[in-house]
């Protein structure tokens, strides 16, 4: 066990994947010499060479489109999209090509491409650098969508995503890149939680609190604070957004009777809306209150001097928890 930042844990996971499988290729803007703007790929080009860690021209559709071609040739490309707001030039390649190639070929073709996207706000950035576009990809059948929240999961989840024969959109909580945690880099993936499984972060009985990515830490802190008020929160890190681990979600919601979903993305048409519908269908008779969502407003991401008002924080989470007891 070693204490690693989330950025370093991803770096170690990518390194392991590059070592384990000669078909793995890392590609993106500034991923080589610079090591990525968040240093996630630091040192990889030096150790694995320019043909396996590729500084690409500056065009996201080109990155994903050529990654698809490499995958058709038998490679396992891992693309880095530098910031969430920059993924849209690649949207057609992801949604119309990557996601649909298996069906188009009636299962004869696999395109095991991973697309890493640093996402979310809280870093005081300019426009397009703080967005949470995950729902757009969850709405697209054929893609797996996952989000890591901490270093230990980041290390295993990136490797599992690379091994997966389905395309994976891999969201990384950019404001948590420098969070540290003990990571067991010695044990293999066999002992790891499956990629599509949610994880209980803090066990509780009163309210189910669902989050992923950067909001997991916020919700874990909310659980500690709520305990002082005598409320125990069952905090679940969803990890996989598509497919959702509905078994874990529903079991918790049935037990607590109250459910709050937290994400940075706008609540309208978001992951929370999908989960609220599912939980309502599956837990109707056990629910004591409507399923509530805490998230970004139905606005574009604001200028950074306002982002603290836009982003859910501990108090807004606790406020929603309180509201579930008002019914």
């Amino acid at each position, binding site marked *: 066990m070693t204490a690693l930042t989330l950025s370093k844990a991803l770096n170690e996971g990518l390194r392991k994947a590059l070592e384990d499988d000669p078909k793995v290729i890392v590609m993106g803007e500034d991923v080589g010499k610079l090591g990525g703007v968040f240093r996630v790929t630091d040192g990889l080009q030096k150790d694995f060479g320019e043909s396996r860690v590729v500084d690409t021209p500056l065009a996201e559709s080109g990155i994903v*489109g050529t990654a698809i071609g490499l995958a058709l040739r038998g490679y396992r490309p891992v693309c880095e999209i530098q910031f969430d707001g920059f993924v849209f030039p690649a949207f057609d390649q992801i949604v*119309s090509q990557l996601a649909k190639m298996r069906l188009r070929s009636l299962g004869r073709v696999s395109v095991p491409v991973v697309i890493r996207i640093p996402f979310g706000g809280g870093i005081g950035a300019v426009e397009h650098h703080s967005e949470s576009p995950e729902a757009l990809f969850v709405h697209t059948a054929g893609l797996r969508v996952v989000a890591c929240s901490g270093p230990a999961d980041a290390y295993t989840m990136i490797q599992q995503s690379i091994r997966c024969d389905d395309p994976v959109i891999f969201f990384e909580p950019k404001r948590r890149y420098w969070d540290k945690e003990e990571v067991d880099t010695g044990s293999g993936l066999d002992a790891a939680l499956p990629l599509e499984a949610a994880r209980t972060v803090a066990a509780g009985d009163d309210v189910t609190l669902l989050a992923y990515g950067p909001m997991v830490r916020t919700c874990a802190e909310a659980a500690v604070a709520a305990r002082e008020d005598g409320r125990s929160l069952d905090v679940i890190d969803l990890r996989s957004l598509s497919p959702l681990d509905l*078994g874990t979600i529903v079991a918790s919601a049935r037990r607590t009777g109250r459910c709050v979903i937290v994400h940075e993305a706008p609540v309208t048409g978001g992951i929370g809306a999908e989960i609220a519908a599912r939980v309502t269908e599956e837990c109707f008779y056990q629910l004591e209150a409507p399923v509530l969502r805490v998230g970004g407003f139905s606005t574009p991401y604001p200028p950074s001097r306002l982002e603290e008002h836009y982003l859910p924080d501990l108090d807004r989470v606790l406020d929603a928890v309180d509201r579930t007891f008002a019914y």
Partner: protein
Amino acid sequence: MTVDADGAVTAPGPGSLDGQPGPRAELIQLLTPEGERVEHPDYPLDLTTDQIKSLYRDLVLVRRIDTEAIALQRQGELGIWASLLGQEAAQVGSARALGPRDMAFPTYREHGVAWCRGLDPVKLLELFRGVSHGGWDPAEHHFHLYTIVIGAQTLHATGYAMGIQRDGQVGESGEAVIAYFGDGATSQGDVNEAFIWASVFNAPVVFFCQNNQWAISEPLERQSRIPLYQRARGFGFPGIQVDGNDVFGCLAVTRKALQAAREGQGPTLIEAYTYRMGAHTTTDDPTRYRLASELEAWKLKDPVERVKAFLVRTGSADAAFFDGIDEEAAQIGRHIRKACLEMPDPAPLAIFENVYTEPTALLRAEREQYAAYLDSFVSEEAR
């Protein structure tokens, strides 16, 4: 800038160019519309009579497949069909330049390439009938699935070519990739990005643009002010314009470009200057946007007729040969018609298959629920 009698404004082209995207003096042609063989110093082509007859056979059969498919669409058996009429030589010439290990990335109109790669035309009908989105195995014939979004496949081709480099398969006996696209596609970002990628990574890919003059209703002038092949220069690799209705020219030019790619000399852009003699698809009506006289002029440059003229002129083929090809064409027409009429619809629950490697829990549940829903009608009928 000039203003003509109707008041239309024509801007001059940049530099020495005339601002027109049409054919140029350097257009490569090895067989004239009259069926006369001409030599080109850079593109020697030595074909046996049997090889020429074989190319003629390809051209005729491919046209027959196209004709039959249009008829099937008109009779309601296909949802839509994208005709290749007029582009047979561009497709057959370029595809016959491919080696068995070379990989082709088509659009949705490359029925002639599909034929040359050995794909049963019935597979194409499955797509246009709505039975599948393609469904053939790209590895089997080294022919990728049809791509409908314009230009997207040029990036796949380039990435695949980068894989060839990583596999160490560049060299005299190496592999190459050909990416097909049209004149409209040259305006797409993906095509321009593919040019950049192929150029800076020196990828073994040939960009084969069938300039058929029309992107549905939009003429070439709406896509470009310079000949398309000249675009290559700005990306740093050679561009060539070939008579796209000349199967010999298309074969020779593509062969040379593929060999250059295999040997590590990087990409080439080939502009096959041709004409879409039919509609964009069976849903289109070209009389709304182009003059009949234009079509009549291109009919004189027919890609099939000029090979026939050559064979007759040189005394290489007799009436029995042509009759034999026509009979074979009729047989293929009957084959695909029969196969199309007998083609079963997929089972409803096939909707849930091949979305992921393994169906997710959600898909299994939806499948189960829908199966039960369908069964509820069966049991009602049984009562």
